[in-house]
């Protein structure tokens, strides 16, 4: 074989291989994604137009499940509770995370990287363990929260046992869990601001509060949008904490939207009905995140 021939075979082999290779490489991922995400999403729509109880195949009912869900007062209670939780994430958790990021970023903070690690740990702690820890802290007679309250003369609060406090308890757990990770996002943004810009603002006589308001916040707009969208989407999916801490109770005081889906499917075994809830939630979700992003863009112009 001459050198030229050899190059040709190599080319031919290489070409054939290189053309086929990407399809083979992407195949396992595509097959698994189709089997476990894309197809189930479509299949879920089929389920939602059937009246399925448990594992039997059920009867076709058209869009009746959707009408029933939209007329179900429990569904709207669950939406209301989810919006309350979302408000907690947007108006308490996110600003708190921002303030904490400012504190960690400040030159006055010592041991910043140590605190950063500590604050992050709740985000990667098993949510079931988080609920176990907090149900002890919330416990009415022996829990630490009420014991600490008693020291300053507060009467015991029936945290997870009362209609008024159940949702607040879940918001507290959410703030404890997710403030740290959102602080990390803000901090990453703050660190990207060149120090010259901040120094220039200070030299021009701006005090710290003004620097934050007129310099940092405008520069952080993309991060703020990211954190808010994450907070809105993340909190709209809240389920494990209310499921295990209050089971949606007392009454339906802490029934959230995804929790209602979960209970409808796997407690009441109304799978068609629950699938319809899922589709309605997804539509709401898409509309919501679209609105948030648009609102932000409008403000930027």
């Amino acid at each position, binding site marked *: 074989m001459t050198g030229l021939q050899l190059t040709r075979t*190599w080319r031919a082999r290489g070409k054939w*291989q*290189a053309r086929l*290779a*990407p399809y083979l*490489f*992407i195949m396992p*991922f595509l097959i*698994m994604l189709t089997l*476990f*995400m894309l197809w*189930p*999403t479509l*299949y*879920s729509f089929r*389920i939602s137009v059937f009246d399925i109880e448990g594992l039997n195949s059920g009867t076709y009912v058209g869009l009746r499940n959707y009408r029933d869900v939209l007329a179900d007062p429990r569904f709207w209670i669950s939406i209301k509770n989810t919006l309350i939780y979302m408000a907690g994430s947007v108006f308490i958790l996110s600003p708190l995370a921002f*303030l*904490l990021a400012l504190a*960690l970023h*400040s030159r*006055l*903070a*010592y041991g910043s990287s140590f*605190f950063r690690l*500590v*604050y*992050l*740990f709740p*985000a*990667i*702690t*098993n949510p*079931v*363990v988080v*609920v*176990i*820890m907090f149900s*002890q802290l919330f*416990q009415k007679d*022996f829990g630490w929260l009420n*014991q600490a309250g008693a020291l300053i003369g507060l009467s015991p609060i029936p945290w*997870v046992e009362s209609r008024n406090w159940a949702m607040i308890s879940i918001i507290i757990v959410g703030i*404890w*869990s997710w*403030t740290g*990770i959102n602080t*990390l*996002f803000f901090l*990453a943004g703050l660190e990207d601001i060149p120090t010259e810009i901040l120094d220039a603002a200070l030299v021009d006589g701006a005090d710290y509060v003004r620097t934050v308001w007129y310099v940092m916040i405008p520069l952080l707009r993309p991060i703020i949008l990211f954190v808010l969208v994450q907070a809105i989407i993340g909190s709209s*999916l809240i*389920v494990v904490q209310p499921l*295990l*801490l209050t089971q949606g109770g007392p009454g339906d005081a802490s029934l959230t939207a995804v929790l209602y889906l979960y209970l409808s499917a*796997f407690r009441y075994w109304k*799978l068609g009905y*629950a*699938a319809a809830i*899922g589709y309605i*939630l997804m539509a709401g*979700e898409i509309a919501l995140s679209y609105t948030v992003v648009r609102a932000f863009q409008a403000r930027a112009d």
Partner: protein
Amino acid sequence: MGHLKRVRLGHSCGITVVMGVLVALGLVTVFPYLFNILASFKPNSEIFSLPVSVFPKKWQLANYPDLFALYPYARWLANSIIIATGSTVISLLVCSLAAFALAKYKFRGNGPVFSIVLTTMAFPIAMLLIPLFLQLARLKLLNTYWALLLPFAASPFGVFLIRQYIVAVDDALLDAARIDGCSEFGIYWRIILPVIRPALGVWAIIAFTNSWNDYLWPSVAMSDMNMFTVPVGLAGLGGGMGAQTMTNTPYGSIMAGATIAILPVLLLFIIAQRQFITGLKAGAVKG
């Protein structure tokens, strides 16, 4: 002079305020863990006695052996370890192969597949519980390891994360290998994988943590007590249902179980902080 003094005073005042906030929030963060870990060394009677104390009056280890005697906790641990490790390995292989194809080949379908990856990245898993449950019930895969190993291993997020690192690999390196007669799979296995080890580390840690912490899908897929993972088992022990004081519930043992459940991730976190923070910053952890 007076001016300087005022600045100094303002400065030390600022330090006090900032450090006060940081320490206070640090304590709030740490306290639940501290309480939980210390309670696992208390006898049950002490957990429910007034006045409450942080440190056990009488240290005891009995809750730990009790946990393993009362519940199939060892089995749950084994299940969790097998599932978290297995799904991490599957996820690393499937995601890195797909990421390689998307990053380094021009082929029909590259664009569409990548937009599928982008749009499914933030997909709510809750939507999938019902169809997956019915699908796997029909395939008789519920209550098997496969039910937890397969569904979320092909993670769009994993592909996205790993792809970013492969894009940065120099094409000349790959062409040189081709000229040396290396097969395409050989390039993946012998060049790409070693070069992107940092990315694999980040994704391994995130995938393991997500699988280890997952509750929702395992609680649906596993109804046989012997197939429970640690979170599913723990949730069933009544420790989460703090509404009534049931002194016959072995809270000490539940606290011991909770302590063991957070240990692997805590250790990983301390050992591999950098990878964790990279993954967390990318927003890859399920909330």
